[in-house]
């Protein structure tokens, strides 16, 4: 089975071959990071800054306010959860199209169980989360154990799960989650909802796991060359299985929190989040750690994209331009990052 790695140039040699003096002491991070390297890492951040300046000039009184920041940071908390799910799955060399549908399933199930069937809130939330994990496990069984291509399997699951969510909810939006529950997502702290802070905590945790624990290293090797990992005693299938389960868990959590945020859930709306999540995750590979799926880069990418969209909306431009901006900035950012990387590689 081909592993269909959504790798963005991972395997390419990165630095020029130099005649370094024998066993030179390892240079500091800063010294190793020349200006070209900074351009590579920071290209998108620079574009972000330019964008902020442009919007600031275009509408200084509206754009350059704390309100704008609140909107950009405070909306779309669920995207961070989906993106982190994708980062985990992509890191081990797999693919997952079903994150948004899993989110929808969990959110819907929680709302339906509480509102329609009168379960206690805690039981309803636990049920929603359990469904998310179960969906992740089903993905894992199909892909890791039965060996089906992950793109096809999760594409099918994505559609099937929307069906299940619609069935659970009897096709309707369900509303009326208790205020106390909504508070877990919407309570404001320093002007931003808790949902935002959960995202920050999640990004920190995933970054830590991926870059500072043995598990993260093992995941990286599974993604880069799973046979090497297997022969080094890494339980490759457990790691792949775990990545899908974790993806289900995070997507489910995102669903629970989104339901809390809205006070209910509409099962069909979830699929709209897939594309932004994929876009941000791919865009993240052009930031901070170029060529690798990385949580912080992805986090920045989410806010990069929404800075553009909110800025355009504040200028009164919406509708077609937001789609265009979304797509074009993804293509542009990744193209620039690919070209920069290539230049460094052949210097």
């Amino acid at each position, binding site marked *: 089975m081909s592993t269909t790695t959504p*790798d963005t140039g*991972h*395997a*390419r*040699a*990165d*630095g*020029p*071959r*130099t*005649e*370094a003096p*024998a*066993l*030179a002491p*390892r240079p500091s991070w800063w010294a*190793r990071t020349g200006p070209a390297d900074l351009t590579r890492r920071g290209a998108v951040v620079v574009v972000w800054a330019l964008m902020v300046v442009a919007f600031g000039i275009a509408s200084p009184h509206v754009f350059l306010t704390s309100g704008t920041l609140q909107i950009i940071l405070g909306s779309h908390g669920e995207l961070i959860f989906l993106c982190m799910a994708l980062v985990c799955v992509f890191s081990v060399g797999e693919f997952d199209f079903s994150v948004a549908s899993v989110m929808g399933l969990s959110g819907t199930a929680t709302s339906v169980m509480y509102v329609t069937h009168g379960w206690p809130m805690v039981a309803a939330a636990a049920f929603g989360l359990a469904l998310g994990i179960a969906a992740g496990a089903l993905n894992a069984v199909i892909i890791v154990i039965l060996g089906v291509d992950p793109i096809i399997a999760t594409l099918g699951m994505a559609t099937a799960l929307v069906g299940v969510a619609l069935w659970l909810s009897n096709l309707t939006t369900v509303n009326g989650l208790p205020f106390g529950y909504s508070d877990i997502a919407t309570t404001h702290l320093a002007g931003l909802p808790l949902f935002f802070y959960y995202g920050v905590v999640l990004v920190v945790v995933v970054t830590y796991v991926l*870059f*500072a*624990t*043995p*598990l*993260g*290293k*093992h995941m*990286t*090797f599974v993604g*880069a*060359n799973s*046979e*090497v*990992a*297997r*022969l*080094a*005693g*890494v*339980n490759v299938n457990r790691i792949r299985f775990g990545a899908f389960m974790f993806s289900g868990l995070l997507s489910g959590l995102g669903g629970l929190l989104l339901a809390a945020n809205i006070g209910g859930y509409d099962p069909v709306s979830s699929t709209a989040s897939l594309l932004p999540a994929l876009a941000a995750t791919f865009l993240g590979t052009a930031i901070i750690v170029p060529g690798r799926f990385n949580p912080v880069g992805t986090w920045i990418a989410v806010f990069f994209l929404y800075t553009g969209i909110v800025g355009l909306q504040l200028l009164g431009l919406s509708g077609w331009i937001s789609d265009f901006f979304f797509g074009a900035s993804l293509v542009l950012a990744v193209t620039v990052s690919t070209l920069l990387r290539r230049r460094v590689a*052949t*210097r």
Partner: protein
Amino acid sequence: MAGLTKTFGRTTVLRDAHVDLVPGKIQALIGQNGSGKSTIVKVLSGFHRPDAGATLHRGGRSYDLPLSAHELDELGIAFVHQDLGLVDAASVVDNIRVGRFSRGRLTRRVDMRQERAAARRTLDRLGSSIDVDGPVGALSAADRAIVAIARAVQSLRAGDGVIVFDESTQSLPPEVLAGFYDTIRDLAADGTAILLVSHHLDEVMALSDSVTVLRDGRVVASAVATAQTSVRELTRLMLGVDPQVHPLREEVETTPADVVLTATGLTGRRLRGLDLQLRAGEVLGVTGATDSGHEELPYLLAGARPGRGTVACGGTTVSLAGAGSRALLDLGIALIPQGRTTAGLALGLTASDNVSLPRMRARNSRYRLSSGWQDEEARSVITEFGITPPRADLLMGAYSGGNQQKFLIGKWMVARPRVLVLHEPTQAVDVGARRDILRNLRRAAAAGAAVVVISIDEDDLAAVCDRVVVLAEGRPSRQLAAPFTAEDVLGTRVSALEKQS
């Protein structure tokens, strides 16, 4: 070819190199890992664009390199690449004819009858009778090589043309080599000029008419007549220093001690109940003909492929049925697989990451990675094996094949395992690097490890092993104990092969 200069960024890897080929003659191209052999081939085949001034002279005319695939075809220059370049799922005829399909004028259709006939003609010329409609994936290694050669020679007119073989013998089992050499000699006898890139100096001595030696991108010896030189002389030209000649077995003494590993009833697809005992401080060689089961042994011993039998080591006995790599690693058995890019190393990650992977769990707490020891390990491998460039933070893909191989072996030796199992440890490695690697194996044994080398390279086996077991039909057939020579190993294997068939 003349004036070949190739610069990658700031690194110049070819400096005004030149190669002259004569019709009907076999010319060998040798050099250390990273000396530029493949780069010459890639410049000629149009994969790399050389710096200005590179030209090809042929038939009294000059051409600027690079040439397009079409121009190469016109000029009758063809290539057989290292991995043969075959697509397993496609049929033999498609693999041979790809890039040359005729096309109906109106229908644009491939005339399969004609294609089959063309493929057939070429195969007949090479004296092969393989079915042109079967998938290449179903062919034996020897037949696969024939298909690759057939693709290269089909458009050459007899008595004309050039074929370049870049380490093509790498993927061939020894028993088909003789036939392969015959094919090459026949081609040369027809008047084709042949360029042969190889690390096997014996092969070079046996097959070629002349030798060109590269060092650091420069030609240090151009078309030296093979008859007037020796392995030793060629090695000196390649390395730039006098090679050491006395056997490693004597250079690094070891003293076999207690039995550390007992394998009983190893059974897999080919192995049939093999028993094996290893002593600390001993280097054991295992070899055999294709399909005799020796290729399977390292992976069974390390739990990397499903099989049956038991392995006892360090007081613990593990049943292979259902056991994975992990269980045998825990016994202290380290496997160095063949195929360094597919199973050995992750080329997209740094040297330090690659080297430290096997001890990631043992040397860290579960929740926190401490990084100091990783670079330390990588640096110790770099010093131990003399790897260049000596940088732990470079991506593995930026090292040459020989250096990669050193990292692969070093990554396992660093942990001082009880048992070191190696499969073809010197494949695609130059003489200098080969000696470095083999010396380190001896040292590991001297330090108390049990080492098993599974290889078809009789020179390697003769150089390092205290004992060699030859397999036939999945069981031990003969044994050799030191001292023995490469010829002894070869002879024993041939007689085992005869017994098998």
